[in-house]
């Protein structure tokens, strides 16, 4: 019977966790960098609030620091891309 055949086929299909893995990779991987970037910018805002003239001095180190924190999230994104491209 058609239904029985379908049931047998459904049992033989192995569920793939790769899409879940890809989602978790980037989802969990972005937590740390998100906090890091937030902390960095918060401290920069505080410094600018205390001393508005320091904005020029602060800008470049802030951007460089943010790029470092962002890089960690990018590593997680690469893993997600790799998984996404597979099964």
């Amino acid at each position, binding site marked *: 019977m058609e239904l029985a055949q379908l049931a047998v086929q459904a049992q033989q299909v192995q569920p793939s966790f790769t899409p879940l893995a890809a989602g978790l990779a980037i989802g969990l991987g972005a937590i740390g960098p998100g906090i890091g970037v937030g902390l960095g910018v918060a401290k920069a805002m505080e410094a600018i609030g205390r001393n508005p003239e320091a904005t020029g001095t602060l800008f470049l180190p802030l951007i*460089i620091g943010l790029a470092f924190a962002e*890089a960690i999230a990018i590593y997680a994104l690469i893993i997600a891309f790799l998984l996404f491209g597979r099964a």
Partner: protein
Amino acid sequence: MEGFHLQAPVVFYLAGIPVTNTILAAWLAMAVLIVVSLLATRNMKLIPSGLQNFMEFAVEALLSPCEQFAGARGRSFLPLVGTLFFFIVTANWMGILPLWAESDWVHHVEWTAEHTAPLRSANSDLNVTAAMAVIVFLWVHASFIRTNGLWAWIKHLTWGPPPVLELISEIARPVSLALRLFGNILAGEVLLLVMSGLVPFAVPALFMGFELFVGIVQALIFAILTLAFLSLATTSHGEEEHAAAH
């Protein structure tokens, strides 16, 4: 986003060697840089104007952190640091243009070996970024050996305990350099493709603007990190400097 591959597709074969669309984009970036350099140094005047003036400004803007980080030696780092910066910026900024997109609905060219787009942002290929990272790695370690000698290099790599710690740290640097640039530009490429697919009018321009920013920041990061590694490697090693680096 059909037609976009993580691994860059081959466009044609040059004497048996596959040439991918990212390599073509890298060659184009090189061509642009060479042409601009030739134009800027034609009829050079002592008091610059026009293109020469702008290029002198750019080179001095790179020379300043070089000498800030490393003092007098910094000038000798400028060729590597400057080239990395200019090449990465040019490649990134050129990759924003729509002609460089790789997607079935943007391009479907039959003459390329794998029937995909003929061009793609050069740094969206891990091979390109890894090549630059490997060059930096070799240059930094060669500079270390030249400054401090072979024995100091071996001692530096086996600093411990555990002895393999420093070696892992040294390997992690080019890996992170390559992956950081690759990931940022790849993500930007995918972002532009997806946004262009969702809202073809006006909105992609915002993301292109963002990619302009990311492109130059990542180029700067790569160059500054190279400068920092070179400066660290070429300091004459005393125990206090070694401790400070950790």
